[in-house]
């Protein structure tokens, strides 16, 4: 990954976050999905814990297999999401880099990333006899409309009431507005940082983005998160200004669609660098930057704007919007092609991907390839197959024009 000074700060932030989660005695712990409106939790001094983030950490540190095997031994099928299996395993073994996650006092999940999270969180809620609040964000087959927005906003208000009831104190709306402000600031900086990858050579790849996405997932709505993304932006902007590329030579510029293969980050870094491929853009890190930057401009109040931002997520959109968005990225980031990760663990991202590939290629005239893998389960990853497919793809792709 690109050697960025900000990396040290990020590690420090994440370590502090996990220390607080593991040692907190006064603040209640809530488990949240990555697309849940964490701003409500921060407004009530709740410590949010993210099993998805922790599952990714387990895979990146090559600890996910043992954890998934423990979950499978407890009866969970290999057919279910590998993040969920990793999470069930860490819970059973108290495993992973932080020695397991602290138990939740309550859980909040949102369906904007998938419906699977409901099942996953229902299981955890049942185990811990902890209340579960589901934020139901309907899939936007034909874009956002007033009814979906009103429905989502009404649930945000219910979430405030849920937290007040759980914590036996009034919901702090003033604090929420403050937290929302910081959340918007951080996501704005994140988007600006991702946009810096448009430069040639790119100063920041999506492999970097996959690493530096952690604070925006876990800490958005806090001051340290804003400060961190300001730091990161400044550093990447300077590299762009000085034309320092993330890889030594940039012959191809590609988009990566779907989650990363967390247990193969170093492998892919080396693989692409050797082939002079810069993975310039990705859809996954953009999930915390919105697919339409101006979508919430006309919101009537900050909570409505927040609801828009949680609906405005790539995999919560129908294929027409996804195709247009991918084509837009292909154009804006001067890409030569795209890679789609058909991810066994993520159906919202992956089901229909073959059709998306056809249509995006047709629309942009740029080649695309689909590789079969998994975000967290190395047992279903075939290096030889992936490599053969990617090599054949790269050989057929015209290089970047000078």
């Amino acid at each position, binding site marked *: 990954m690109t050697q960025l000074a900000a990396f040290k700060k990020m590690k420090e932030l994440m370590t502090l976050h996990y220390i607080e989660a593991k040692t907190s005695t006064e603040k209640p712990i809530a488990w949240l999905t990555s697309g849940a409106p964490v701003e409500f939790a921060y407004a009530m001094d709740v410590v949010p814990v993210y099993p998805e983030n922790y599952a990714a950490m387990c895979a990146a540190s090559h600890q996910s297999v043992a954890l998934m095997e423990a979950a499978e031994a407890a009866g969970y099928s290999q057919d279910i999401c590998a993040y969920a299996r990793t999470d069930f395993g860490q819970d059973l073994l108290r495993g992973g880099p932080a020695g397991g996650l602290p138990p939740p006092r309550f859980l909040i999940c949102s369906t904007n990333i998938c419906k699977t999270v409901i099942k996953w969180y229902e299981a955890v809620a049942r185990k811990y006899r902890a209340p579960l609040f*589901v934020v139901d964000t309907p*899939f936007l087959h034909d874009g956002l409309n007033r009814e979906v927005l009103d*429905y989502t906003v009404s649930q945000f208000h219910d979430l405030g009431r849920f937290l007040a009831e759980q914590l036996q104190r009034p919901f702090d709306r003033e604090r929420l507005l403050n937290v929302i402000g910081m959340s918007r600031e951080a996501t704005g900086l994140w988007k600006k940082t991702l946009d810096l990858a448009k430069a040639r050579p790119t100063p920041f790849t999506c492999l970097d983005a996959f690493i530096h996405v952690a604070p925006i997932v876990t800490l958005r709505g806090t001051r340290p998160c804003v400060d961190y993304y300001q730091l990161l932006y400044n550093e990447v902007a300077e590299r762009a200004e000085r034309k320092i590329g993330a890889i030594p030579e940039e012959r191809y510029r590609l988009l990566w669609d779907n989650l990363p293969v967390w247990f193969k980050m170093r492998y892919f870094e080396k693989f692409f660098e050797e082939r002079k491929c810069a993975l310039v853009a990705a859809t996954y890190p953009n999930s915390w930057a919105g697919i339409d930057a101006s979508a919430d401009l006309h919101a009537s109040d900050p909570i409505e704007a927040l609801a828009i931002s949680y609906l405005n997520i790539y995999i919560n959109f129908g*294929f027409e919007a996804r195709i247009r968005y991918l084509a837009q990225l292909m154009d804006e980031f001067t890409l030569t092609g795209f890679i789609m990760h058909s991810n066994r663990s993520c159906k919202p991202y*992956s089901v229909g991907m073959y059709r998306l590939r056809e249509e995006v290629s047709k629309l942009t005239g740029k080649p695309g390839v689909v590789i*079969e893998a998994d975000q967290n389960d190395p047992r279903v990853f075939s290096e030889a197959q992936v490599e053969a497919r990617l090599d054949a793809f790269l050989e057929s792709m015209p290089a970047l024009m000078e």
Partner: protein
Amino acid sequence: MFAVFHEAILDPFATVRKCHDRTGRPVIGVMPAYFPLELIHAAGGYPVQFWGAGLSIEHADAYLPSYCCSVARSLLEIEMRGLAESVQAYAFTSLCDTLINLREIYRRLFAKPTFEFSIPVTPNPEARKAFLSTVVAGVMKGVEAVSGRSMSPEALRASAGLYGRIRGLQRQLYQLRRRKPGIMKNRDFYAAIKAGFFLPAEDYGPLLERLAAELETLPACAEQLPRLVLSGMVFEPLGAQAVFDGLRAHVVDDDFANGWRSVSKGDLQVDDWVAGTADYLFGGAPCCCLHNPQSERHAYLIEKVKAADADGVLFWPMRFCEPDAFDRPQLSERLKQEGIPSYTLEMDLTTSNFESAKTRVEAFCEMIGGLEE
């Protein structure tokens, strides 16, 4: 007694074509699950339920990866092969991630209209109803455009009565099976239920009535055999249900999404039909696909087993069905705590050889039979 049902499902596409030609009603394909069929019927449509098919996957693999369930893959296969040419439009639900994206694939590949019945899962009844009113309005607009007829309150009342009566008769069949285990073969029972997916309600109702009346006259099987409850999303492949018919066991109840979970839905209340639709969706047996804190599956299944005086539960999951798979470990554990044995038999719609299933079910039945003694 069951020949007419078997005939209807032998070639469901031919059945639908023939009935469509006769009734002239436009066929609307209904994807899994819980779309109130009476709404389509009231708007002049002919609703036909699709729960997948036992087809070899030859075309759908180009668009659906192997980690999608065989229900979704075979549904796409049906349309790609052109088997459902009499179907003019499809109604989808938001039951799972695969189905949500499947609708998007249909929209890109085929010209037939599709309607999305997005089921709100917030427990807040006001929010649920407010959102559902928009959803059903959108769906009905689409259905009416296909049928060329508007849904009148009178037509809705009549259709609700018709479908309510059918589900009532189906429940009667379930009760008969529970009361008099062994009076019908398992394969016949599910053929009778499945025929309702394809036959027009006006034809299916009288057939069910006749069947129920005939079954009422039959004596119960005298032999006491282990009693099983089956649980899963779909009771297919039907051939696998025949496995039980050669065994020393009785299936006395089920918890299938296309079985009891659908059959248990009450009559659609039409005075406020949007509220009625919400009650319909979340009433009846709980489903792993519908988050509903008010209806806990664990307590429900235990109660079902006890009410059916069953000796064990056989889980019948479709491979790659996540909602079902997530629930199973805790559900099995809870059953175990209650002293109810359970066993899991993974299924796939493309499976055609059931010998191994038979051996395993046999072993489970012997085990629970032994426990009884």
